[in-house]
Every structure is written in C-alpha cells, then in structure tokens.
C-alpha cells in the first residue's frame, strides 16, 4: 500500500543482522535520541499521537509520561506474548527486523529514564526468541546496549525472557507476575503498572509494534508522523488478516483505510463462490461485525463507533459456509481453557457458556437459553480483574445478538434430527 514503515523491504536478506540494519540507516534515530533530553523525547512521542498497538489503544506518550521522573528502579517490559487468536504481526516483525525493536526499546527507556528492560516472548515463538537473543547479543557487542550506550549517559540492560504457554500472560499484569517467576495471574488495577509494576517498581509496558514505531517517530519528528493516518488514529498499522481469505498475511495500512480494501484488495477476499458472513476487526476478543460493516474505515474510533474494537489489529474473516455456532463454540472453549480461575464471573461464566453452547449444538436448548446466555455475558463484562472474561463475553454476546435467527434455526433443526424432547415441551405435555 501507500505508506510502508514497518514492513518496508522486510524480506531484505540479512535484515536481522546489525550490519544490514545499520546500512539501511538503523540506529540513527537512537543516536539522535541520545543527544536529546528525556522530556523532549516524551514530547515527541506525545506529538506523534502514537496509540498502543497491543489492544487497548492507549497513547504511548501519555503512558511514558505517567512514570515518575528521575533515577530509580524503573523497568520497561516489551510485551511480545502475542497470543490473541488471529494475531501474528509481532512474530513476523520480530523475526525479520529484531534490531528495530531493540532500537525502539533503547529510545523508549531513554525517554522514561529506565535502566532495565525485558522482552517477554511467548514460549511458542522459540525460533523468534532465538533470533532476538542473537540480535541482543550483537547490540551488546556493538555498544548499543549495556553501560553508557554509544558514550552517552544512558545505560540499559536488556533480557529476552521466554514464557511457557499461557494466553493470560499477554495481559499486562499477568505478564508481570509471570516475569516475576509466578503463575501468570492478573493483578488488581489500580495501582497501574506505570506506578507499581514489575518488582513493585514503576514499569512501562508496550507492545512490539508500538515500540517499533518509536525510531520512525524520531526520524520523521512527532508532528510529521502524526500526519499519517487519521487525526485520532495516527500512523500505520500492521494488520494480520486470516481465516477464510485467499491470501492471509500481514499487511501494513495507513489507519483509516476502508476495511473492504484490506479484506478484498490485500487479502484477496473469501474463496471463489463464497461471501463474507462475519468478521472480527481486532482479534477473537472483539465483537463480531457483519458484511454490512465492510466499508468501515479501519481505525480505533471507527471500530469503537461500530460497537467493536481495533484491538490487536487482527482481522479474522468467516465466510458463509461456516455455521456461526461452530465459531462461538471454538471461542468459548478457548477462553474457558485460558481463564486463570481467579475471578468467579470469568471462571464460571466461560464454563457455563461452553455448556450452554453445547446444548444449542445438540438441540437440547430452547431460544430462552439464548437469553440466559446473553445475560451471562453481560454479567461477566466489567466484573473481573482483567478483561479475559470480557474477551469471551463481547464476541459471544455480539454473535447471539446478530445471528440469533441462525442459532434458533440450528436448535430447531438439531432437535428435530435427534428427536429430543426438551423440558418446556415436557411441561406442556404434562399439563394437557
């Protein structure tokens, strides 16, 4: 597409090595940053309008400015635990251009005056973690990490930490507990990590893609960067498109590009003879949209206005050959498995949703069960420490609302097929 920042010549051989990265102008932004005051760096980030690319879409500059000033035990954690179903942008970015991430981390730590940073990579990304470790070692050897970076006052220790397989460790406070060597249970917020995070110190947590934008902001200048995209959603976004499309993959777009362009022009649309039935705009946790929403501009605010969210920037396309029930059941089972069990609404809510969906599948349910299920979703949202429960409740709730007719027709058909007699019918039979 028009603007290529992160995916620009991404397949250049050897880009994962320092030599090629520097030949392409790598680490020049860092050199510039080291001559600037931390406060001025934060101002550039604020001016860029960069919003977090991990899911919440919070202003990165603001987050950095929340950290207490001065030298103390502060930490930066790069969230590379990309586990939102349908999301695979960080994987390709880290694997092909690891030094861009390192440069972004060093600049961000300079802005927030942090001397220790960690990259938390999900354990499944073993190949990517190995590439990152090699890049970090190279950066250390070249004086781009460690004591007094490039002769400046800035010092940074960077460690690549591998997780061991848990969706919830992508949630920032669950990630912190996991990084502290514990079970990855989320924490109560507030206090927010910017005040009390890793080892109880102020902690800046950013997604891989967010940090990778930082060197470009320095290169272009915050104000210039803000001209890309829309007014409130600045910059480009790497969108992972998957599911029933002909060319799934990562595509970089300017925020505000019509969703139809991404799904049809870039990803090729659904296979021959099929049509888009539903799509998730921001990973499996985002409320589902339908074919009517295809002309939505792809940015944070337009997605929110349509009742969904940009989330991690992962579009999952479901075509008209797929029953919506199988999508709902797949999702509910996933969130049930991944619920850490700490909060009752999430632990019980995910479990009961699976059971009720299984009844819908077997034809044991009635349409009243769909109402019960919808009310269970409403009672999960906002009632837990983290948003894992919400992440199931939002899409499932939207599927019940938007595909109710299909679910009811499924119940009727399944009941007729299995010859089941459900309770209300039994009651009617007994009364007469």
């Amino acid at each position: 597409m028009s603007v290529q920042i992160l995916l620009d010549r991404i397949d250049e051989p050897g880009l994962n090595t320092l030599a090629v990265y520097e030949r392409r102008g790598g680490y020049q932004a860092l050199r510039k940053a080291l001559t600037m005051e931390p406060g001025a760096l934060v101002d550039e980030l604020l001016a860029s309008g960069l919003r977090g690319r991990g899911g919440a879409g919070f202003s990165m500059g603001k987050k950095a400015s929340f950290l207490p000033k001065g030298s103390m035990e502060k930490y930066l954690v790069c969230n590379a635990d990309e586990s939102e179903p349908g999301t695979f942008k960080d994987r390709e970015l880290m694997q092909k251009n690891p030094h861009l991430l390192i440069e972004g981390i060093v600049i961000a730590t300079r802005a927030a005056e942090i001397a220790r940073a960690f990259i938390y990579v999900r354990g499944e990304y073993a190949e990517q973690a190995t590439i990152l470790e090699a890049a970090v070692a190279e950066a250390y050897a070249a004086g781009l990490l460690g004591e007094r970076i490039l002769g400046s006052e800035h010092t940074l220790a960077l460690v690549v930490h591998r997780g061991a397989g848990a969706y919830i460790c992508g949630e920032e406070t669950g990630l912190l507990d996991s990084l502290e060597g514990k079970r990855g249970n989320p924490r109560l917020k507030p206090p927010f990590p910017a005040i009390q995070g890793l080892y109880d110190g102020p902690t800046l947590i950013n997604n891989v893609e967010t940090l990778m934008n930082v060197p470009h902001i320095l290169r272009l200048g915050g104000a210039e960067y803000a001209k890309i995209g829309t007014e409130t959603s600045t910059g480009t976004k790497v969108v992972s498109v998957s599911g029933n499309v002909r060319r799934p993959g990562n595509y970089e777009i300017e925020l505000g590009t019509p969703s139809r362009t991404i799904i049809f022009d870039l990803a090729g649309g659904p296979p021959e003879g099929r049509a888009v039935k539903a799509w998730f705009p921001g990973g499996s946790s985002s409320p589902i949209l339908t074919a009517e929403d295809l002309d939505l501009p792809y940015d944070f605010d337009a997605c929110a206005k349509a009742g969904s969210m940009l989330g991690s920037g992962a579009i999952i396309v479901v075509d008209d050959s797929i029953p919506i029930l199988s999508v709902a059941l797949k999702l509910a089972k996933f969130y049930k498995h991944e619920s850490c069990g700490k909060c009752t609404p999430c632990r019980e809510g995910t479990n009961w949703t699976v059971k009720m969906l299984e009844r819908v599948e077997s034809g044991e349910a009635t349409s009243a069960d769909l109402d019960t299920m919808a009310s269970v979703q409403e009672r999960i949202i906002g009632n837990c420490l983290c948003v894992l429960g919400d992440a199931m409740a939002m899409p499932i709730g939207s599927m019940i609302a938007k595909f109710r007719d299909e679910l009811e027709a499924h119940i009727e058909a399944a009941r007729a097929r299995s010859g089941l007699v459900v309770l209300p019918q039994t009651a009617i039979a007994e009364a007469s």
Partner: protein
Amino acid sequence: MSADVKRFAGGSRVPGWDTAADLERDPAVVPDPATTAVPDELRSEIEARMALYPDTRSAALPALAAAQRLHGWCSPEAIEQVACVMRLTPGYLISVATFYDMLETKPVGEHAIYVCTNISCSLRGADELYAAFLAAAGDAQDLNVRHFECLGACDVAPMASVNGVYVGPLEPSDAQTIIDQVRAGSPVLEHRQLIRRPAAETLPIT
C-alpha cells in the same frame, strides 16, 4: 440426560477427589544441596539465568524449561533439582509448572507436535488435521501430539509446531510425513517452514 455426565470414582463429577493429600506428612522444604545431586550443566544454566534478574525468582520459567529439556518433563526429580538451585520449595515450583501449557507435569513423548486448533486454523481445516495427526501417531510413546491454542501463525493455517519449528499450511496427508521426518531427525517439510515465508504481499492470490 444425567446419565451422559462423565462420572469419576464414587459417582463424583470431579476427578481425583478421592486422592487426598497426606495430611500427616509435612510439606517438602527447600532441598538440601548436600544431599541433592544436580547435573553441573543444569546448575550453571539456572544460575546464569538467575543472575539476569533483580529478583532471582524470575528465573523460574527458564529454569523449569531447562530441567524439562534434560528430564523430558517436570518430573519430581527435575522439580527437586530446580528447587535446590533456586532455593525454592518444590511445592512452589509445581504450582508454577501446572499453570503453563508448555511445561509438562506428566511424562510425555520426546517429540512435541502442537497442532493449532484455534479459530483461524479451524476455519481452514485444523480439526481434520489434528485428527490425522492423532490417527498417524496412534499410541506411539515417543510422540506428544497435542491440540494447542492459537500459535500465532494464522497466515499459514492450518499449521503445527513440530519441536518448536512452525510448519504450514498443512494437509491431513502431511501428518505421516512429518512424523516420519521428526523420528528420522531430519528437518520437517523444509519448504513449508514459516521462517522461510516471504511477506504476504509478494505472494500470489490463490
């Protein structure tokens, strides 16, 4: 309908309710270095990891992963050795190990084959792929075939992670080939490894 509910010992719906903890026994304490033998390689790996963090406990996951590589799973012996080096109780480490999907708390086959069956892969036939892997593996003791949550490779869906190497897109008929290759110790489906895949925009729309 109630007859369909899975029942365990004593008619309980909860498995393992009757294998109660031994209340007479004291909980295991931090192992004594004098009586706990730890292989030198494992010890130095864990100690090097501990040195990287302000709080040494942060090394728990890398340490358990290292012990698992050595022992094949987080066996009581493996846990004991990690506990000894890290100066933690075995109970603490077991509580950590049971939380994470990649740490095995029961003996498993040496070759890990994780088949992604999450939403994007299942839209493209992951359930059939997983069934093919199960059928091809049979009850072989050297394989650890599991269905796994989104592995973050939906661009090559349906896919699998074979001993940490991502391959896809796969057909059910690839299951046997992969199993043969992994047993022979040769690279799996070299031309379909994710690490070699170019950016999507350079590929044809099929």
